[in-house]
């Protein structure tokens, strides 16, 4: 167990955050929830920027804050790293200066990489001696990540550091995060409101809604729970399957398959171009107010949801327990 948050309550103005969860000592924990759920506030609280009204936080068995006992470790002594959404590089220093800032202040006892190693790993070696104001958004994100890692924290919190990136660069950044968390054995806690990013990164999930933790636990368990699914936009509803189960997918992490992108068949389809075809039994049929239906199929890779039209629901004679096949185009995942 890495982070242990017990009945923690923080208030900022009218908003209050109440959290209770623990995270494992390895892998990536995704903090998921819609905007305004208190995700960033949770990270700020863990980093020690906000004071607890009540409750307790500890990290690897070391007490960080206990409101009742009036004990509190300052941000700079917590061993909690934080990568901000807006990078927050020091403008008066070069890229190398920013990295050295972190390197110089880390405890000698903590094993950590050197600047050049990290720079090579994150592909920032080329502009080590540039002032930070000339960097692009993606470059800034990578420097901020490198800087946080050089500080050798016990846990690294990331507040949507990839928000400024799109498409290919975003995917590359996410893959890099997964890679680092495994190689550096650095537990991470990543905030995101994008379900695809959450599915791709998460080993564990802490789901937040309106300042409350509605679910937490392993990604595969939490992401199919009702409390989690209700956090999603209608068009994002779907299911998480392990990335390794997808044709061409890398093992580790998951893939979010949206119900809108899944085709159902009541007979085994043949001659399909789609590489992802799974057989299963219909676990549930949920009728939506507009007449369409969400059909949940239990397959050997887990539950898969498909949204079908009212007409299809009638034509296919679908019923719970019946056999069906789910087809997913790889490019939609």
């Amino acid at each position: 167990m890495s982070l242990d948050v017990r009945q923690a309550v923080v208030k900022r103005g009218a908003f209050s955050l109440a959290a209770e969860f623990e995270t494992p000592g390895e892998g990536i924990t995704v903090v998921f929830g819609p905007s305004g759920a208190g995700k960033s506030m949770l990270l700020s609280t863990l980093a020690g920027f906000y004071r607890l009204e009540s409750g307790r936080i500890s990290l690897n068995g070391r007490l960080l804050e206990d409101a009742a006992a009036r004990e509190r470790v300052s941000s700079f002594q917590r061993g909690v790293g934080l990568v901000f959404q807006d990078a927050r590089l020091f403008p008066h220093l070069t890229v190398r200066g920013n990295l050295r800032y972190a390197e110089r202040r880390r405890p000698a006892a903590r094993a950590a990489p050197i600047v050049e190693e990290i720079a090579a790993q994150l592909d920032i070696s080329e502009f080590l001696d540039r002032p930070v104001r000339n960097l692009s958004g993606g470059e800034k994100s990578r420097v901020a990540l490198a800087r946080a890692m050089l500080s050798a924290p016990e846990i690294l919190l990331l507040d949507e550091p990839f928000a400024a990136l799109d498409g290919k660069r975003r995917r590359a950044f996410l893959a890099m995060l997964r890679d680092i968390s495994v190689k550096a054995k650095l537990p991470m806690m990543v905030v995101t409101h994008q379900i695809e990013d959450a599915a791709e990164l998460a080993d564990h999930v802490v789901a937040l809604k309106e300042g409350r933790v509605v679910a937490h636990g392993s990604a595969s368990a939490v992401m199919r729970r009702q409390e989690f699914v209700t956090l999603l936009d209608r068009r994002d509803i779907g299911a998480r399957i392990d990335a390794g189960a997808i044709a061409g997918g890398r093992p580790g992490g998951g893939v979010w398959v949206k119900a809108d992108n899944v085709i159902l068949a009541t007979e085994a389809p043949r001659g399909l171009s789609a590489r992802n075809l799974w057989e299963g039994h219909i676990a549930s049929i949920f009728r939506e107010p507009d007449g369409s239906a969400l059909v949940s199929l239990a397959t050997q890779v887990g539950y898969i949801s498909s949204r079908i039209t009212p007409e299809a629901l009638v034509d296919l004679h679908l019923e719970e327990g019946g056999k069906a096949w789910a087809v997913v185009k790889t490019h939609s995942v």
Partner: protein
Amino acid sequence: MWERRYTPPQRTPLAGGASRDMVRAMLSAEEWRILATSLGVAGRAVIFSLPIAIAFAYALSRPRFPGKSVVDAIAHLPLVLPPVLVGFLLLLAFGRRGPIGSWLESTFGVQLAFTAEGAALATAVMAFPLMVRAIRLSFEAADPGLFEAAAVLRAGPWDRFVSLALPLAWPGVLAGAVTAFAAGLGEFGAVITFASNVPGETQTLPLAIYSALQTPNGEALALRLAAISMTAAVAGLVAAELIQRWARRRLEA
């Protein structure tokens, strides 16, 4: 002893004169002495009060702490008090019979009243609010998010001040110091009350202008001194502005 006759500067012929002599010849020996006294007094005033001004400015730029309004009031007091009163209060405290003044003299043999050091002290007190204001503004202009970033990189409060607050604010610190220096060249009331008007020791530009105006036929000297004073003040302001602009360009992300 102020009754001095004005002797116009000795002009050397332009042709063949070394440039150094030409510069020297722009002002008379007396004018050079007055300017040097002014520069010395204002310079010492800035050097000694700068660390204190930085401490006050940093404290005042922090969000909240007990007694902040009191500190704020103390820092701004010289702005609203009549300069003569400031000089008088300094005399009461730092004069030879004042509690601090007598202690300084018996312990260190230092006398402040009627000396250049005293003039510097009076100038420093008067320029203090200006300096605090400029420096505080630049402390406040620094993005608080950067300090959070430094804190999670294990930088403690003093470390953050030295490694982040000062480097980010130093153009403002420099500009504040230059502005205070320029203003200090012109401090009159507090200096004449506390340090008197001793030529070569405490007779700064404004005091010399005052003396010249009290002297028959002194208008010419007064005018020349006024021009010197003006030039120095404007140069100071321009320098402060240039520093600010250069710094803004350098730090803009």
